[in-house]
């Protein structure tokens, strides 16, 4: 049995470069050791609408995830530290936030190894990296919006 058509994301044929916008060199100003806006722009296939949706979703998601990691560290729940860090890491990787993703990965490893020494410090570092990332992401969206 083949799937029903009702969940087909795109029912109509689209032009070959539909949704793709040219590379904006002003993104280069946002590039840091922590964040590569050019790589993100390519990853979302230069689709501003998609990027905006992702940023909104992450904005809604990350505070709760950080809170979950914090609670897990406090409760010394290794499995939860590993699980929630892993989840944040996934999103951060998609946003090309390399340092933030690395911090989340270290927390994940701590949970996996059941050794939470320095975990709070690492969580703090992660919070800072995500805060910086969110600023950069919002700038990126606004900048692109003003151009469009």
């Amino acid at each position, binding site marked *: 049995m083949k799937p029903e058509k009702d*969940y087909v994301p795109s029912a109509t044929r689209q032009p070959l470069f539909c949704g793709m916008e040219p590379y904006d060199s002003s993104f280069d100003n946002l590039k840091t050791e922590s964040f590569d806006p050019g790589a993100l722009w390519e990853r979302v296939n230069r689709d501003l609408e998609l990027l905006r949706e992702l940023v909104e979703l992450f904005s809604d998601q990350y505070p709760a995830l950080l809170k979950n990691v914090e609670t897990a560290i406090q409760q010394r729940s290794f499995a939860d530290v590993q699980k929630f860090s892993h989840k944040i890491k996934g*999103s951060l990787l998609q946003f090309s936030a390399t340092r933030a993703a690395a911090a989340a990965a270290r927390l994940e490893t701590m949970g996996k190894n059941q050794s939470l020494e320095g975990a709070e410090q690492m969580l703090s570092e992660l919070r800072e990296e995500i805060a910086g990332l969110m600023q950069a992401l919002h700038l990126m969206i606004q900048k692109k919006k003003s151009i469009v």
Partner: protein
Amino acid sequence: MKEEITSLVMDRQQAKLLDVLLIEDNPVDARLVSGLLRSPSESLRCRHVSLLAEATQLLKAVQFDVILLDLNLEDSSGYDTFARIISAAPKTAILVLSSSDDEELAVRTVREGAQDYLVKGSFDARLLVRSIRYAFERKQSEEALRHSETTVRAIFENSLDGIIISGVGGICIEANSAAAVLMGVSREEMIGCSLFRYVDEETEADWRERCKMPSGRTRFWLRREGGEKRLVDCGYNTNILPERHLIVLRDITEQQSLEEQLRQSQKMEAVGRLAGGVAHDFNNILGIISGYAELVQLSATESSQKQRADKILGAIDKAALLTKQLLAFGRRQVISPKLLDLAIVIADVSSMVHCLGGAEIQVVMHAQEGLGLVKADQGQLEQVIFNLTANARDAMPDGGVLAIKIENYMSRGVSDIPPGEYVLLSVKDTGIGMDPELQSRIFEPFFTTKKNGNGLGLSTVYGIVTQSSGHIVVDSEPGAGTTFKIYLPVVAKTTIRGPKSEARRRIDFEGHETILLVDDEDDLRHATAEYLENCGYKVLKARNGKEAIEISDAFSGAIALLISDIVMPKVNGRGLIDHLRKKRPDTNVLVISGYADDAVIRHGIYLETTCFLQKPFTFQVLGQKIRKLLDRHVQ
């Protein structure tokens, strides 16, 4: 840019609408992936679920082409997630999407059936779409390969022919069950062994030589584990893979044996036909000699002339007996059981038995006086004696004694023979004899120990004896000769007087009717016509069926009897008889033929037995037969 466009265009050209199931519990990741899949290619339809339970439920109802799987979900994590999905959708391509760059996990999932393993943050839309498409294509290829492998494996396992894959030096790498059965070992025993171990020494060199060719077909003898030899038809193909050779073996031992038997029986059939043909022609010649000898005898005024004619007729009787035996050998006689005195049967075949036995064999025949009568077909019993004689001869390659004895026998039921009176025919030789195992198989059709035997001789004997309600017993020991005892139940005790014992009498068979005589043998036709005219008949003579029809149509009077040969040029006997039965329904028919009765039947002529006379016949018998027919008609 140009390259990028070309790539995308190619992707679109090759695109097939694929149904993708995304199993991802992270909303950001899920949105990104579904967004990426939507954008460059509308040839993907993506459905998203967050939990493993949802996914497995959905997979029960829907067939997807590709599954994008995050390993860490709310209700499952790590390799376990993969294991449960592949078991729910074994035929679907699975692409693992993970945020953990775990090489070990990646290798494990790919080894266990995942088509690819992508780390989040390391792929863009183009890479993802391409990975999905490649994953689908690889899975399709894998499935096709698996299907093909399953089919080939089934053929391999179920083939009635032995199939072997060998490696360097003829070492068996794989063999199917049929091959193992052929070699007389288990498959496990075969694998790892050199195949030359099973090739008979006599044909090994030839086999090695032939196998130097890249492919081909050959026949050779296998030597089974127990030492038994089997003839095999072998098809081989070297290097179907590097240093892997295919060998297909078919056991043709029985086929070869049957072919040989068929050739032998065809040869015997041809010999029989030849013998029948010779007998026919010879009978015609005898008929002419007999006819004129009788005419001489009838017209003889001096006793010396009459005596000479008697000698000629006596010699003709002996010659006629020989042709009759030839016809029996050619199996051209119709089976008709009748009361028989075995002493007469034996006397009839005596000369043939001596011939069959050959110079090295001394034949001794003895028949008790006052034998009971049995009911059997004479031709068949003659066949029994011939077959047993041939068997005895083959058992005595250096010569010996063959004793044929006939006597009355009363069974009290002590032995295997049921109580009652029998005529016992025993055929005893002083040959090599047989062990009990061999004795137990000798009556099996096609069983033979002779190089050129057809295995039918003794089975025919057995068939005839049982068909005649008799019993056959074999008594033999290696080196002590063999005795076949045939017990035929006695059905009457009245003595039969053989035709030879009847004195040749001159009986007056005069008549006045018109007879149409048709025979392509001029001399026989003239002699017969002269005899019939002497008897007072009016004789219309024809050389063949066509001429006979013309004479019949032109003749206005009644034709009381048609005497006709069967096998003739132009219109044959059947055509003539059919014509006469239409035009002259009252005309009697008497068929004369140098062939036996079955030839008449084969020509499709229905006759009562009284209307057939086999050549050579005496005019006395002919005259008697004619009167019987015509007088019956009058009555």
